[in-house]
């Protein structure tokens, strides 16, 4: 069996980072909009 686990780990790590960062970005933007509304 070929030894290519590095690519597998990298792909999953990249996906986790991208999806988490996106969910966090929605949270940050929502907070910013709420702040703008309360001003």
């Amino acid at each position, binding site marked *: *069996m*070929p*030894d*290519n*686990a590095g*690519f*597998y780990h*990298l*792909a*999953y790590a*990249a*996906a986790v980072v*991208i*999806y988490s960062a*996106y*969910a*966090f970005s*929605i*949270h940050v*933007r*929502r907070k910013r*909009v*709420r702040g*703008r*509304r309360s001003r």
Partner: protein
Amino acid sequence: MKATPLSISAAAAVAIALVRVIFFTPYEMRQGAAQKIFYIHASSAWVAFLAFGLVGLASALYLWLREERLDRIAEASAEVGLIFMTVVLISGPLWGKPIWGTYWTWDARLTLSLFLWFIILGYLVLRGAIDDRAMRARYSAVLGILAALLIPFVHLSVYLFRTLHPMPIIAKPSAPSLPSQMLVTLIMMFVAFTLMYVALLRARYRLAVARDEAAEAYHA
């Protein structure tokens, strides 16, 4: 993103599916560990197509009914779909390098997928460039429909052109060509990623509503 029953169940479903991929799904003998990239790649691609399909549908309905809600759904789905498509375009080359010997080749499926990614990016840039809400909704709806029309070509490109990309394993006329253990894992990933998409779409839609309400309050 707010913790709602939907977002919590989506996160739990993704976590369970990932545990199944990592610990309870066997390696494919010829491709080794890199074959497991397929689960995240195919399920992200399915969600990206679903998201862009919804962009096309909501855009067409907007042009017909002129409801702002439909424009917001299209906007939210385009942005969430772009994130899923980004993962497709990153995970694909990471599988291609160990299996094909190259990260990228200008093959029909890969090129059309990249092209679709750029169209959706253009859609979001266009939305950011137009201040008038009605005009922004109308112009982007046309682009959203054109982007959605590309989806069947991306899916069928492996039949229409000579390509390196593997043929569909599930979305094809005959029975799925995967051992049952791997098929169950793939279905779990599809369900989990669809739930994650719905949760992200809902959160992004609510952001669009809040942003529009803030803009209205500012101009009032």
